[in-house]
């Protein structure tokens, strides 16, 4: 059945944790998922195939920033069995939309492995993130991370631009 990208519920968190453990080397305890979901309920998004979670994005607000609202992407992954549907971009845009609509966030940042070309392509070329720095040995295995950031544009075009285009990608079966 088709894939629906929607805001995550508390009930989804266990499936998100499982998806994360299957796909990525950076893992978190349930309490950390709960912390995200209960602090910023509308920010977490899942890709749902008739009830089964096949991808997620775990987002938060930067707690160190007390004067401005800034978003941060903690983790993003999509099961390999559901690639080529553009889910990662759709999940990210849904998180962007929630960041702007629900919180009026100024920008959003994330870390990415310097070797992860596919992800860098997604953030830089598809979602228009900029590289703002390198964090040495950010990952447990010693790899460096790019620090990337996207500043939301409230003036001109809708900050949620591109959602319709994502839906188009989802509709690959057309």
């Amino acid at each position, binding site marked *: 059945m088709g894939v629906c990208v929607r805001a995550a519920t508390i009930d989804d968190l266990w499936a998100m944790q499982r998806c994360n453990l299957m*796909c990525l080397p950076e893992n978190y305890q349930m309490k950390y998922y709960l912390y995200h979901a209960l602090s910023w309920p509308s920010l977490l998004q899942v890709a749902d195939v008739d009830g089964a979670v096949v991808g997620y994005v775990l987002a938060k607000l930067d707690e160190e920033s007390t004067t401005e609202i800034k978003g941060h992407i903690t983790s993003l992954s999509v099961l390999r069995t559901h690639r080529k549907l553009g889910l990662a971009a759709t999940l990210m845009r849904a998180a962007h939309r929630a960041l702007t609509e629900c919180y009026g966030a100024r920008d959003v940042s994330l870390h990415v492995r310097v070797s992860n070309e596919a992800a860098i392509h997604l953030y830089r070329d598809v979602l228009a993130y900029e590289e703002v720095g390198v964090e040495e040995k950010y990952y447990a295995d010693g790899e460096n991370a790019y620090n990337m950031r996207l500043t939301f544009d409230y003036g001109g075009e809708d900050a949620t631009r591109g959602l319709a285009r994502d839906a188009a990608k989802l509709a690959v079966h057309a």
Partner: protein
Amino acid sequence: MSRDRHALPNRERALFTKLVDAYETKKYEKGIAAADDILRNFPEHGETLAMRGLIVRSMDDGHEHNEEAHALVKRGIECHPESHVCWHVMGLVWRAERNHVESAKCYAQALRLDPDNSLILKDLSVVHLQTRNMEAFVKLRWKLLSSRRDQRASYVSLACGLHLTGDHDSAFEVLESYEKIRNAKQFDSRGAWRDEDPLMKRFDASELTLFKATLRRASGKEKEALALLERDEAKVVDRVAYLTHVGEIQVALGMKAEAEKTYWKLLDRLPDSYDYHRSLRAVKGLPKDVRDGAGEISDGDIVALKALYREIEEKITFCAAAKRLPLSFTKPGDEFDALVVAYIEKPLRKGVPSLFEDLKNLYENPAKARAMERIFTETVASLKSSGKFLSGGETKSEEGKKECTMYAVNLLAMHHGEMGRRSSDGGAKDFAKALELIEEAIAIDASCVDLHLNKASILELAGDLHGAADAAETSRKLDLADRFLNSNCVRHMMRAGRYAYAEQLAAIFARDGDQATNLYDMEATWFELEAAQCHTRGKKYGRALKYYHAVLSHFQQFVEDQFDFHSYCLRRTAINSYLDLLKVEDKMYARQEFRDAAKGAVMLYVDLFDEPPEKKAAALEAKVAAMSAADADKFREELRVAKEREDKAEEERLAALEEAKKVAAAQESKNKSPKDATKKVDPDPLGKALENTKEPLEQAMKFIEPLLLHAAGYEETQLLAFEVFLRQGKPILALKAVNEALKIKPNSFQAKSNAARLTRHVEMMDEANPMKKVLMMQVSKLTGNQTAAAYAKALADESPLNPLDVAAVSFAQRETADDDSALINGAKRTNVDCSAFPFGSYVAAYERYASVSESAAEAMKAACASAFPYATVFGGSKSTKRDGE
């Protein structure tokens, strides 16, 4: 008088303040020093003793100093029983070991001594939330509100409590009065309302509006809820949550036209939410469920559905469901064929891996399955010969033609795999075809990862566990940096029983190298369940139990996890998610992964009760003793070879783990300062202590109790509970389990088999036992006054078809007639029809027989081997063999 006795001089008073500060800022060493300083001169100062105990407990990760902590606090209370501090501290110590009941008692005692202490009131109120003592929570919150009227959390907490006790109207009033006070700017001048975060103002107002709507709806005031939402629409930042509420209310109020508009808006936002599609159809009087197999759809409805989905396609941009759902509600025939032809072309061109998964539920309709077979076959042929899709669409290049052909062949392979799974004769023919096709696709491009993943799933469906594991390994090697491929391979290796290698693979992505602890720390229940089941099949019960207990402890942790969020959420106003959290927590042990773990663990413990390790060893000795000398030698030699192989595997496993640890340690020291090397060593890595437990049934109850608490409505729960209660000699509880199971599934062969077994138990009870008569009356209601043996035989005569039912009835016959041949006869009766029962049921039944009787297992093998030639478990002729097997 007594006050004086406990008062400290200035110096020590200052030290005591330092001690409390040190505790709160987690500077435990300093705290201990301050406490010791005080105790030097005042060794019986109760509050200092208690605080020292609390710090000892707080420093104690491994719970090794738990007793010391308790002793200190207890001594503190003895020295100063009228100190609320001592009792409060005792409550905190109990809290540290998650004993919320004891904790609440201590806080209550502390409150008796200091009734208005808001710190204790808050701590106690959190315990009430954790233990769902909502009435008591509300009482405390009223009290807290009267003293803390300048904090929003006071109002929100009380409203939540009232809501959870069912008093939604009072909850609503509390929130209204908060808003009134807030708007009147009361307390503002005093710089109060400090629990409001200026950055979160908009969000908090939104949450409050949604909560108020929830409250109105909970008390049946849907109209008021709607009016409130429409009035405060601008306040709600979560548009989807807003519209979802509005839609549901409109449906409840019968405002069909308005509801329809709302669901159009929601679909505009989330075009592929099947929930909103269902709701929209329902509002329009159309079938909610349009999947094949969900019931006949009338011709009129089909016409209306077609019109609706045409409209959705036109109005909603990029809605995949609008293309997919017509495949479900269109009847088989030319129109369906045309839809399928159009639907598969684009994903085949792109190589979308989920295409088959997307179509899978159409197979509920056999005519559609046949049509798809025809279309996929023709597509393959057409692509091969002319490079064209059935639509006439061309592939752009020779390369494109090759690729599209490969994906089309892959699709056809998956189709045959599914047909094999659904066949009524074991499906060997379809599986052969599926495997031939997937090899054909792989021959086109062996570097395509998806093809090997699919090959693994087809082989798994056919039951060839080693073949599947080998295919998964091939896919893994194509991209070593991909954890998904690694995880998938681990899973397949576990299912094939290749634990040592699976563990090595898992360690690659487990950060410490020492995967057992890392995956445990990360709560990787999927891995633990696979490992536990793998070890159960490999008869390594200790290790299996270790993994099952790991899952149990994760779930206990998940329940405990909510503790810190009670006050956090109420302070932060994330009320709506918080209420969801409570609901989810109250069903925690009903989650699939816990139920799977409980089932595995309980059945293991039950088997250990029936056949303790020492009894097994004795039986083996007896077996050897009965053999001729030559046979005995041969048998011993076999055992020796098996053990050698096992020892070698174990050696390799440990060596590989050591190696991985070294690599990880080297990495670690290169990158960061070494972590604390004091990581605890597991004293029982093989779970020997668990396996040799003298109380297997008590251990089993650790899994049964949470199941009965959260998952009593599942038949499986009642069946498992029965196994334990019967063996514990608790026939009344066993009877209850049978009755509950029959309530859930009135014709359950497994529950009825349990009725027969229980009847036998009652028949064997001592005549002098006064319970016998009462129980007899109860069980004869179930058996229709038959004896246990007669009732079991009658069940067998009904000839159940499900292999698990056949097994259950055979076990009942064996138990009621003391007849071991019943199992063998039952296993022989197994008839193969996978169209009705999944292959997994055959495997599960086999494992059931195998756990008690080798000859019954052999009989089942014989009954199944030819129908499942690929199945590893039945030793099928076509299953992939490994060296030494």
